[in-house]
């Protein structure tokens, strides 16, 4: 018995005696069936279509199931779907659902639920929007079958329905999916996934609880990310929100929590010294640091100024500021896509890795830069943007540019970056952010690399050569064709500096050694995880 238990026992002895006590083995068994998890952020809302934050998706995969699911090779595998048929012309897809699928309210999952869910998902998702543009008819033909007729073949159908980037195509009951449009938040959390959401125990900002769904029928295959059998080895998963990393570290060491999704690198050595704690890379798809320049206004409407900045920047400086000296956690990149994934290429990417300040200065002088101030937005409440912003401000000053460093918060950056006004009229010159590696695996999911002018992401780059390759990638039927299109896209994006990646970085996760089954992945998958 440890000291705290002894103290507890002493103080509570009378009460326990009076109540008849709680059998120790029963208590221990219950504790072993509850997984206490500290997520990356607060679960502030729980509609994975309305709110596209990663923390919402990570909770949603417990509650809602998907038709397909990515495995660790980023290949979509059948999940709720038993099988599919594609017509000769590639325009008609017919899907059949698995038998025995059931929602948490006891109702069977029917094809019309799927149709309604897809209709709610499409307007919010880049791949969904492409499908919506091709949609001729999406309908349920019987309870387990639905048919999708398109105006043109869409080779990436299974990828669209099974990807792990937000928003994922989650299946919910028709009555919910039709009552709330994509831009209105649901207030009923009924899915058909392996866990039920215990709504009355949800305290946003503090706690979210999930209870095992007894009627869930997992697939027979072994679990592999979002694919395979999602077998829950615990009865209850408790998400404990801890805004303070030091507190989470102490709670993990003390055994008050079992698994921490994203310990900060400063605390990892402390955790590693504890023999009861295991530490490993969390998400091999990692993140890409970045800053975006405003292509509409001086000085960054001049491609030569953008090239000067890209040539001068040292990704090593950024990564060291972000994650420190641990070389396991970062690498420089010569391309825009996620390193280690099938489409990663460094074709034409020499400028990204140049890290040549002198050459950058010379290029800036030749660019015609006239000393226009750069309004540099830096959100101070996000460690990732703060660290990058400080490095950028220093870089630009050394390069010879005039910098107006605007220290603000993420909410304000979110509002101001949408403004197209000139920088001196409330607009901006550049801002910092990062992209989840799970999003940066193809040009449709990865809107940061798109360059379709007004339709592009903030900064509004307009590079037809980049856009020309997106349909080529979509139409590609072999990986070689896909890679060729992405190689050309990467070259054009670098030459025109669509934006500046600042490096690829990973993060750690940590857990108590009495917990097993934790895997590396873009989502903290709770299935297959058990406690002893």
């Amino acid at each position, binding site marked *: 018995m440890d000291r705290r238990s002894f103290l507890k026992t002493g103080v509570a002895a009378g009460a326990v005696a009076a109540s008849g006590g709680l059998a120790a083995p029963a208590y221990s068994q219950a504790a072993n069936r509850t997984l206490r998890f500290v997520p990356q952020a607060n679960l502030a809302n729980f509609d994975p279509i309305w709110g596209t934050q990663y923390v919402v998706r990570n909770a949603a995969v417990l509650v809602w199931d998907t038709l397909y699911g990515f495995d660790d090779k980023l290949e979509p595998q059948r999940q709720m779907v038993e099988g599919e048929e594609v017509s000769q012309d590639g325009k008609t897809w017919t899907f059949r659902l698995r038998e025995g699928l059931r929602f948490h309210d006891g109702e069977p999952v029917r094809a019309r639920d799927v149709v309604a869910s897809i209709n709610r998902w499409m307007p919010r998702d880049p791949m969904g929007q492409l499908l919506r543009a091709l949609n001729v008819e999406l309908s349920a033909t019987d309870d387990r079958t639905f048919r999708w007729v398109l105006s043109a073949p869409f080779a990436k159908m299974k990828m669209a329905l099974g990807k792990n980037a937000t928003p994922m195509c989650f299946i919910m009951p028709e009555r919910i999916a039709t009552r709330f449009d994509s831009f209105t938040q649901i207030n009923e959390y009924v899915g058909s996934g392996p866990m039920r959401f215990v709504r009355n125990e949800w305290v946003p900002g*503090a706690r979210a609880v999930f209870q095992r769904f007894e009627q869930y029928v997992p697939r027979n295959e072994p679990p592999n990310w979002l694919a395979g059998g999602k077998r829950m080895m615990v009865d209850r998963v408790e998400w404990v929100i801890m805004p*303070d990393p030091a507190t989470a570290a102490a709670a993990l060491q003390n055994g*008050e929590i079992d698994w921490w999704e994203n310990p900060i690198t400063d605390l990892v050595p402390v955790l590693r010294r504890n023999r009861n704690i295991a530490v490993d890379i969390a998400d091999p798809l990692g993140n890409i640091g970045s800053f975006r320049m405003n292509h509409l206004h001086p000085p960054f409407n001049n491609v030569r100024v953008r090239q000067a900045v890209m040539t001068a920047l040292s990704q090593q400086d950024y990564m060291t500021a972000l994650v420190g000296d641990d070389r396991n956690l970062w690498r420089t990149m010569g391309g825009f896509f996620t390193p280690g994934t099938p489409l990663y290429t460094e074709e034409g990417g020499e400028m990204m890795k140049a890290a040549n300040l002198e050459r950058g200065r010379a290029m800036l002088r030749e660019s015609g830069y006239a000393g226009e101030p750069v309004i540099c937005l830096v959100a101070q409440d996000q460690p990732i943007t703060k660290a990058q912003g400080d490095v950028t401000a220093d870089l630009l000053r050394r390069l010879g540019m005039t910098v107006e460093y605007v220290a*603000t918060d993420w909410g304000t950056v979110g509002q101001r970056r949408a403004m197209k006004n000139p920088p001196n009229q409330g607009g901006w010159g550049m801002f910092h952010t990062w992209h989840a590696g799970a999003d940066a695996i193809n040009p449709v999911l990865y809107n940061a690399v798109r360059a379709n002018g007004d339709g592009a992401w903030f900064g509004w780059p307009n590079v037809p050569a980049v856009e020309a390759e997106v349909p080529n990638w979509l139409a590609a039927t072999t990986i070689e064709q896909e890679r060729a299109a992405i190689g050309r896209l990467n070259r054009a994006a670098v030459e025109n500096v669509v934006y500046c990646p600042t490096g690829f970085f990973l993060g750690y996760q940590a857990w108590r050694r009495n917990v097993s089954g934790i895997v590396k992945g873009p989502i903290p998958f709770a299935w297959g995880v058990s406690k002893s």
Partner: protein
Amino acid sequence: MFAYVVRRVLATIPVMAVVALFVFSLLYIAPGDPAAVIAGDQATPADVERIRASLGLDRPYLVRFGAWVWDILRGDLGTSIFTNLPVSTMIAQRIEPTLSLMIVTLLLAVSVAVPMGVVAAWKQGTLVDRAVMAFAVLGFSVPVFVVGYLLAYFFALEWDLLPVQGYTPFSRGFWPWLENLILPAIALGTVYIALIARITRATMLEVLQQDYIRTAKAKGVGQRAILFLHALKNAAVPIVTVIGIGIALLIGGAVVTESVFAIPGLGRLTVDAILRRDYPVIQGVVLLFSFVYVLVNLAIDLLYTLFDPRIRY
């Protein structure tokens, strides 16, 4: 007296109206857009605009303010933009931890600080007095989070006596409730103890110089009775004032303490809401805090009559 209480309670209405107007206006002009946060990085400007419209954030200032005031008058604090839960529900979920933390802190602070201040005044210039004053300086100087981390390190990690974090509702038993509050209350209470101890000492020193104390001593009244019955009661008015003012200090400190000890209270709710621009929640919590503060001040004013019968309303 009753008329005074009624007058004071009625006087809270214009105060609350001013607070409401101020908070609403401040949030209206503050930068930041909850719709952009909700929409996420993949969203197009049109998506953000649709979300803004669905939340009613595109309506003019007066329309929004009028609707909010009308809802409040009907007892409805609104619905959180992010959680889709009524603000009153969110406050109800969070009020017990914060209230518990404040009560335990208050009890701890008063029971430790007042005797400390009294003893320091009684033993003026001695080692005891200097130790109390040194503690007071330290208490003022060390931030709450540093005290919190140190306490958690020693009492939870090193000696395994108390939990690091969390909150257990009172309904699950006294000890489970208390064990989660001991470290946060000490962390939060340190500065409060320092403040009350200093004021108690200073006031007591003044009172101990009074003629009636000398008379009591001459009559042979015991030291303890002089200190706690005669002197302390006469020193109580400024001490009670400081305790009242300190409640605002506690509310501010609770934000940090709740974060350090992962207590799901109103402080954390406020910070989360501010960072996300969850306007209805911010407005609801600020209104609640203002109301509590007004009531605390009223209670302090009434307490004066208890300690000093010369005060009449």
